[in-house]
């Protein structure tokens, strides 16, 4: 909250007051109210989409844009019958079950041997004082076992995540903001602020496209709802011709609006993922998945 206000103040400094007013008003109109609790934010977020897409159930949002784009959904369902992410799951499983040189396994680092836990991430880590995504937790595990960290965007890391998501399929996203950790709430608030802030030369916020215009067409591309935006990762995209991470997709949306993308697993993207995951609580994991 405080860092958000600081950022906002920085942003609007040097702008004459009469020009400042409209942008201040936007923050309060489109954005969820600054002083709302996460529970209130979540209720408002869902209500918006319920009103826009009255036929959709919460679980339908697991399918991203294909929940609302009937035509594209048909070809997508056909792809899902011979999924191009199958090799990633197999590779990931092999990696996951291979012992480190010290004899330990990934399974030793996680509750439930690491299976069926993707829906619980990202988490606030009290000891580290920051948001830990599952990708981060995998690298923390490697470091603990004296192994070097894996790059995040694609390759082995994404294969590991694909396998872990696969073992978590159907489980509802279940991310919480512990009441006894003000740092967790602050990370959430920063993620929320990032989501509603306008970015880049084209001056869009994530909300401009995925809330205000969800279901409408940008050129011939229907815009998806942000509800469940974190549930289908990692994902095979034709555009990439390979599997990729959620943060890679964040970066691509920012690049499209001529904004500076942040690095994979940066604090900005981890907090954004935390906010979006909390908004998507209850949407089942469907990763790994396929998208255009």
């Amino acid at each position, binding site marked *: 909250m405080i860092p958000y206000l600081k950022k906002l103040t920085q942003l609007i400094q040097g702008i004459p007051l009469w020009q400042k007013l*409209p*942008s201040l*008003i*936007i923050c309060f*109109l*489109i954005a969820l109210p600054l002083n709302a609790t996460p529970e209130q934010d979540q209720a408002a977020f869902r209500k918006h989409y319920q009103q826009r897409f009255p036929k959709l159930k919460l679980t339908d949002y697991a399918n991203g844009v294909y929940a609302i784009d009937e*035509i*594209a959904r048909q*070809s*997508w369902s*056909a*792809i899902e019958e*011979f999924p*191009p992410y199958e090799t990633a799951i197999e590779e990931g499983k092999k990696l996951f079950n291979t012992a480190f040189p010290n004899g330990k396994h990934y399974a030793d680092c996680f509750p439930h041997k690491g299976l069926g836990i993707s829906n619980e991430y990202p988490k606030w880590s009290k000891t580290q004082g920051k948001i830990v995504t599952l990708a981060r937790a995998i690298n923390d595990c490697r470091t603990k076992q004296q192994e070097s960290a894996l790059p995040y965007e694609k390759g082995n890391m994404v294969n590991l995540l694909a396998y872990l998501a696969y073992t978590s399929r159907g489980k509802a996203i279940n991310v919480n903001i512990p009441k006894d950790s003000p740092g967790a709430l602050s990370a959430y608030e920063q993620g929320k602020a990032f989501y509603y802030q306008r970015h880049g*030369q*084209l*001056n*869009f916020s994530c909300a*401009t*496209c995925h809330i*205000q*215009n969800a279901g*409408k*067409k*940008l*050129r*011939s*591309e229907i815009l998806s709802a942000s509800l469940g935006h974190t549930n289908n990762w990692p994902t095979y995209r*034709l555009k990439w011709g390979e599997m990729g991470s959620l943060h890679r997709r964040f970066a691509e949306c920012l690049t499209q609006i001529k904004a500076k993308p942040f690095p994979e697993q940066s604090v900005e993207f981890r907090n954004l993922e935390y906010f979006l995951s909390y908004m998507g609580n209850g949407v089942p994991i469907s990763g790994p998945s396929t998208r*255009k």
Partner: protein
Amino acid sequence: MKTIITLVFLALLSCTSTTKMPEQTFNPGKQIAFSRDKGNCLACHAIKDGESPGNIGPALKNLSTRFKNKQQLREQIWDATQFNPETSMPPFGKNKILSENEIDQVVDYLWGLK
């Protein structure tokens, strides 16, 4: 297997085919409005001759009945947030997405559209 994936994906992609410009006399304003790395107005607006437009904003036609004069139309394009702080439309002039001269050319072109 791979071929099937590729074919189905291509079918998906074909829905997002790029806009071909019909052959005709060169109109700089139109080219700026249609070009993806200039105005890209078709991303949000239907415009005569424009293929697969988006539907975020209203169709751009009969603007001379919507705006008092060209200057007013120009202001909408220069910075739409002046009139609607919540607008989805990028501020083409204010954020220097288009040059002043390019905006004039787009205005000239749009003003004539019925």
